[in-house]
């Protein structure tokens, strides 16, 4: 570990130090697998979890969204962009290899989502980015959005995850999320849909004081978290992967789940 990382880590660790957190540097890039992994971790791990992950091109919509109203499905199909429903709330987001996802899973009776956002702001300051959060816990640089988040709560388990636009293709992002379909009123009275809140976006890479690669940023984040000796690195075991794949096949790849009306 090089010295400047150590130095940054110290300033970071004092803000927030959860105990016994396992950190996963998840290298799978299949959106179906990764969303299944989140659910699997939430259901089966008692320790707190932090996971870094990325997806190949995909639109990830919120649990209670209308897929047609959120996604330009023709564009997604033509450009081989997966469309996957997640189990947290919130709106539709675009993922690609220029986007980094962070997941926190914790046991907390009185969740305060603001603390995770603060944490992400700290991570951004590692690379010299000074960003602001709003009341929806979205993160902005000079008024342009770089991060959105969503949460899931079950009993005292909390899952918080967020995106970070690092060097995504913003034209694809805009086109994929530009659906011309509006849910007819006859449908909205039958079911409650969460509508995405659209914001102008930017990539973190455009605001860096010094250029840094996304992989190096990931390494900085992980090293920083591992400064706390109670935290440890974890890699999926064979059993984990098998179980996650099963969940993926049973749920996250199915039209039943993704296209539910």
């Amino acid at each position, binding site marked *: 570990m090089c010295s400047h990382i150590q130095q940054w880590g110290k300033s970071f660790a004092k803000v927030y130090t959860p105990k016994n957190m396992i950190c996963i540097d998840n290298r799978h890039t299949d959106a179906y697998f990764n969303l299944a992994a989140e659910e699997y971790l939430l259901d089966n791990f008692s320790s707190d979890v932090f996971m870094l992950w990325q997806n190949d091109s995909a639109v990830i919509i*919120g*649990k*209670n969204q209308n897929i047609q109203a959120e996604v330009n499905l023709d564009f997604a199909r033509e450009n081989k962009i997966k469309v996957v429903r997640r*189990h*947290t*709330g*919130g*709106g539709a987001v675009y993922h690609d290899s220029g986007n980094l996802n962070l997941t926190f899973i914790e046991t907390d009776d*009185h*969740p*305060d*989502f*603001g603390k995770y956002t603060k944490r992400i702001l700290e991570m951004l300051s590692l690379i010299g980015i000074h960003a602001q959060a709003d*009341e*929806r*816990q979205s993160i902005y640089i000079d008024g342009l959005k770089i991060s959105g*988040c*969503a*949460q*899931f*709560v*079950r*009993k005292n388990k*909390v899952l918080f995850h967020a995106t970070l636009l690092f060097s995504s293709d913003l034209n694809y992002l*805009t086109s994929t999320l*530009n659906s*011309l379909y*509006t849910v007819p009123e006859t449908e909205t*009275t*039958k*079911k*409650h849909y*969460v509508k995405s*809140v*659209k*914001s*102008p976006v930017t990539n973190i890479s455009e605001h860096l004081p010094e250029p840094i690669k996304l992989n190096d940023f990931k390494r900085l984040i992980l090293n920083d978290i591992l400064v706390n000796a109670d935290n440890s690195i974890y890699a999926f075991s064979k059993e984990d992967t098998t179980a996650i794949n099963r969940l993926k096949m049973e749920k996250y790849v199915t039209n039943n789940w993704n296209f539910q009306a």
Partner: protein
Amino acid sequence: MPKLAESITEGTIVSWSVKVGDSVVEDDILFEVTTAKVNAEVPSPVAGTIQKILFQEGEIVEVGAVVALIDLESGEHTVEAESAVVAAPEPPKTASAPKDQEEVKWYSPAVLHTAKEAGIPTSELDRLPGTGYLGRLSKKDVTLYIEQKKNGGSAPVATSAPSKKLLPVHPPLPNFSTESASGDMTIEMDPVARIIAERMLQSKQISPHVTTVVEVDVTKLVYWRNRQKSEFLQQEGINLNYLPAIVEATTKALKEFPKVNASVEGTRFILKKQINVGIAVALDDGNLIVPVIQNADKLSISGLAHSIDTLATKARSNKLKFEEIQGGTFTITNFGTFRNLFGTPIINQPEVAILGIGYIEKKPSVIETPEGDVIAIRHKMYLSLSYDHRIINGAVGGAFVKRIADYLENWEK
């Protein structure tokens, strides 16, 4: 309804996992609830039998509300899980106004968002009574307020602005104090006039307008109409005027200049796939309406003529359907009717350009011939294009209107 997290005051019930008569044990999932950002499964705090479900799927429920009754062996139990445990967040105080001791009211993101979409300022929210948790304003309160506001004296929407944006029916139009002399007459705006006034003002504020004018030699078009008009009237039953030809030339040009058939949304340009041309129609009561020819590029001259005739007749007899004034992507206004030559029309939001048609009149004109220049009597017309300089620059705007002119100058049918 448990408090899901700090700052969350209400949620929508997405689905019940139990029904009346089901027996549950502690921690069984009772229902799924969602807010804008959080999805949650709420477990039962007790074991027993579901006796009554008080909120249906899709209903918004405030934190602390009783959502179901569970029959314990020993009697009845209301489900309102740990609502009392969590203290409400401290409302932030105003730093800049020390003498004003009143606390700034706290609003949930959902409330703020709904209000913002409807164009309701926070100052207006402050005046509304809240029925939510600790007397707070709930999303339901705001939605109800917007509904009432919308229904209060509003006539069917007068222009083809997007239906999604709810505009206040009683906009705070700027006031200049006027000195009224005796004999002045004061006229209260009718609801439609108010909407028009508001939209006009908004458009000028939203779009930096630029207007450019070209002169068109429409002699060929005039001759074409003279040749066709009696036969057209016989066959089609309606008069043939110049508007269908102008609409056709415009749709052809729009196809070549997609930025003119577009909208600006924040920092994005939305290039519209459909070409829906609105035609501004003056009404007898002095108001204005813009019926829309949907997919105007797909219609023939006679199709356009019929469409314009039907829409104009419906407009004047107040019989336009809502969908007939919706979805415009470009507007044409014909002030030539009043023998006006050119003008600087105001863009019909959320479109980005509007074409003004001037009066056609005969003028002496220089014609270049192989034998030298001659002065001839030609039919001339001005086309005025106002465009939104955020998306259309001078080169595009100028080339676009020139393209329409070229189509009309070389009119052959």
